[in-house]
């Protein structure tokens, strides 16, 4: 068991972390909004945690709180990401479809360049030697795991609540949702902020997990990976992002024996999956299930 955790612990925790990031993109997508801002908030959260853990100005705080500094970091990261998301969301969520996606790409890139240049973020080399919360990498599963469970529970409850219905209505038809009395901007911003808060917290948890934080943590490529997790997993079910993240994020590791050809295969998988799994894996599984039920039920073929 210990050997197993030694071998795969880091990878497993990475999968939890990537699933959480997939959910940060799933929230806005529940309201039909393609936001690629998650890596930006993830990077921001990581920087907040890294700075709070290493900056000499925060030493008294660290001494006073001990390990209590970590929850405080998560809180700060979530809060700051949330507020920033609110500001961006209110201005950018008037935009629809691809325009919103582009605005969020711009946000991520601007943030990246700024972090690359500021003193407090450590410039190009970033911040390193971040104090560890746990001795072993796999132990970080003890924070990512519960966070993922909470997120799953949150999504599950959300989907069957008034708020969740409003989000789904906006995804289906924003105009009709407005005409049915749903304050579309409010709910779009809400979903965007929830996603940002989640990404910020995951970032704050990831900084000690990776031990170092730099401007390459939040990039455009990452946004597209998260999008791929959600779409290939299935964007209409809460299990989609989870399944997508676990499968796609472990793929490069599974392909390790292929050495430098592994990213070629990885890319091909993305293409093939988008073509043959238009409803995502969860959608395909659902169809499979319906097929089986249909063929075995005596009333098969009716309707």
């Amino acid at each position, binding site marked *: *068991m*210990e*050997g197993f*955790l*030694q*071998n795969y*612990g*880091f*990878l497993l925790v*990475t999968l939890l972390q990537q699933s959480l990031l997939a959910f940060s993109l799933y929230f806005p997508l529940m309201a039909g909004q393609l936001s690629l801002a998650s890596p930006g908030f993830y990077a921001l959260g990581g920087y907040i945690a890294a700075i709070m853990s290493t900056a000499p100005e925060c030493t008294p705080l660290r001494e006073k709180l001990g390990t209590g500094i970590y929850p405080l970091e998560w809180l700060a990261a979530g809060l700051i990401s949330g507020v920033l998301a609110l500001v961006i969301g209110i201005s950018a969520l008037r935009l629809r479809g691809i325009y919103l996606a582009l605005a969020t790409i711009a946000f991520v890139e601007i943030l990246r360049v700024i972090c*690359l*240049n500021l003193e407090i973020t450590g*410039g*190009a*080399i*970033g911040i*390193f*030697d971040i104090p*560890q919360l746990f*001795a*072993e*990498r796999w132990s970080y*599963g*003890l924070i990512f*795991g*519960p966070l993922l*469970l909470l997120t799953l529970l949150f999504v599950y409850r959300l989907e069957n609540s008034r708020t969740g219905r409003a989000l789904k209505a906006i995804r289906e038809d924003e105009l009709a949702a407005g005409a049915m009395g749903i304050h579309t901007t409010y709910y779009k911003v809400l979903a965007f902020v929830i996603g940002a808060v989640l990404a910020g917290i995951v970032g704050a948890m990831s900084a000690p997990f*990776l*031990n*170092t934080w*730099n*401007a*390459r*943590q939040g990039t455009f490529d990452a946004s597209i990976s998260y999008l791929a997790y959600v779409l290939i997993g299935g964007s209409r079910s809460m299990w989609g992002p989870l399944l997508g993240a676990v499968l796609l994020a472990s793929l*490069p*590791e599974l392909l*390790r024996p292929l*050495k*430098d050809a*592994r*990213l070629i295969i990885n890319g091909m998988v993305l293409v093939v999956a988008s073509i043959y799994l238009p409803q995502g894996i969860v959608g395909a599984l659902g169809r499979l299930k319906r097929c089986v039920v249909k063929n075995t039920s005596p009333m098969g073929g009716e309707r």
Partner: protein
Amino acid sequence: MKFAAVVTLVVTLFAGAAGAENVSKPIPIGIAVAQTSNVALFGQEQMNGAKVAEKYFNISGINGTPIKLISQDTGGDEAGAINAFQNLVSKEKVVGIVGPTLSQQAFAADPVANRLKVPVIAPSNTAKGIPQIGEFVGRVSAPVAKVAPFAVTQALKLNPAIKRVAILYAQNDAFCSSETTIFQQAVKRQKLEIATLQKFMTTDTDFTTQATAVLRAKADLVIISGLAADGGNLVKQLRQLGYKGTIIGGNGFNTTNVFPVCGKNCEGILVAQAYSPLAQNPLNKAFVDEYRRTFIKDPPQFAAQSFTAIQLIVEGLRKVEIATKKKITQLDLATVRVELNKALRKGSYMTPLGEISLDAEGDINQHSFYVSKIKMDISGKVGVFAIVSVVK
């Protein structure tokens, strides 16, 4: 938190179940560098150097026992480096690791090896704080602060009239931005005036702005901290626009990759080197010959450093055999790793980089550096780094 409790319980139950195991034969040595992503440029050179080392040292092996290089791709990111290290340590059961390519990756991955008590030799991590990551982390790459200033001294020796200096550096590269501060200090120490300070990105291709700024500042010395592609290109555009003065290239220029980039315009660039293929020592000769035979070109610094890293591990293993009076393969893995780490820090090594040793922290003590001048042949395609002076 139930999940956490269960995990903790299961782990406690199984802890200690792992028994001692011996080192396998041939002795596995890990190399974790970037074979994909945009860092692969350096990673592939490191791979080449390590391959030459494997072949060279297997002529005699560890007193007859062959070594085997096991490579894992780190990609360009931190998670990739951690995964690669993890694989090498736990699955491949290597005695030591050479890697990773980037300092940022080292900050993420080295603690993994350090915790598991596996020695790491960094072939190219020059950032401050790398050896301090832990007692199992060492490096054979001299920190920038040591190498860079020699070039400035040499430039002044060649042309004492130099007064105004233009400094340019790649802002988005960790190495270049730390190197430039060293250059700036060196320039100030020599009481020269910094006429202009220009930044660029390693991804830039058009340097007209920076080049015109240099010309306007009427600089007679230009110091560039960039990588081969952008730095070389900057030199090319600088010369094309009519800059005639001396140019010092940072460590990023210390590769033959720069020749095709600036072509004839490379002529005369001064580079302070931690490694020169022309260095006169028998091992370097052997290394350069073998490298040329395999890859039809001179070995770059990255290759030499990864060769050196492998060499240290090989010699360290030999020392372990002498100390324990047992074959490595008869010892258990954990012991070998700890003993190897101790051995690495003892004594000095004659390597392609010249004579070096690791101090108690694991940082390199390198005894000789070179300042070289690039000389291009008539075709403007092939060049050499001609040693101007050897600094002891």
